[in-house]
């Protein structure tokens, strides 16, 4: 299956892009995506990361489906 991964702010700077597509085995979880991204971009590991799946906050154990939209970002800082 394929999922889209979005980056914002600090994570976009580290990833060097705002959107990638990731191919995953079936039964993958959000944490599998996170581990792969940290392997590709080790500096992500210097930050407290938050995840969303389909625009809802999610934990690493959230199961993924083909076409899901993940986002990886640091603690929010609006206001």
């Amino acid at each position, binding site marked *: 299956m394929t999922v889209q991964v*979005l980056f*914002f*702010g*600090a994570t976009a*700077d580290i990833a060097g892009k705002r959107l990638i597509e990731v191919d995953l085995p079936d039964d993958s979880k959000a944490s599998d995506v996170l581990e792969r991204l940290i392997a590709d971009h080790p500096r992500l590991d210097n*930050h*407290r990361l938050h995840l*969303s799946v389909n*625009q*809802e*906050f999610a934990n690493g154990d959230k199961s993924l489906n083909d076409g899901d939209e993940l*986002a990886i*970002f*640091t*603690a*929010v*800082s*609006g*206001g």
Partner: protein
Amino acid sequence: MTGQASNMDFFELTTEPIDLSSVARRVVPPECGATVTLDGYARQFTKDKTTGEVHETDHLVYEAYEPMALKEMQKLIERVKAEFEISNVGIVHRLGRLEIGETSVVISVAAPHRKAAFAACEWLIVELKRTVPIFKKEVYSDGERWIEGDGAA
């Protein structure tokens, strides 16, 4: 980007300057006598919580995960109206580049009784800073930094 929670509530993300009065005034129903408005803005000097050092900011850049930010803003309005005796809420957050002194966020709450308006407005800014995926970059004369979490309590 604009959202509508119900009747006179609204929430927006905008790259245009925010007019405080028009936000405060849009939430006023005829039975209300008071609106409480929080106005956050790009500040020039920020004290580092850890080092105590004072940074001078040149300008700010805000970006948002826009569709999720609007969903979270809508949830905030649903929650605040369930928990407080208030009539209407307006939330507008600026995105893009902000010069020093420009308004980053306006939250207006109209209520029949001012006590609930104060409590709800304070609750909303705390929760917005905790849950809405908006990200702030401070740009200095000699560098820049994405802020992580609530910089100002």
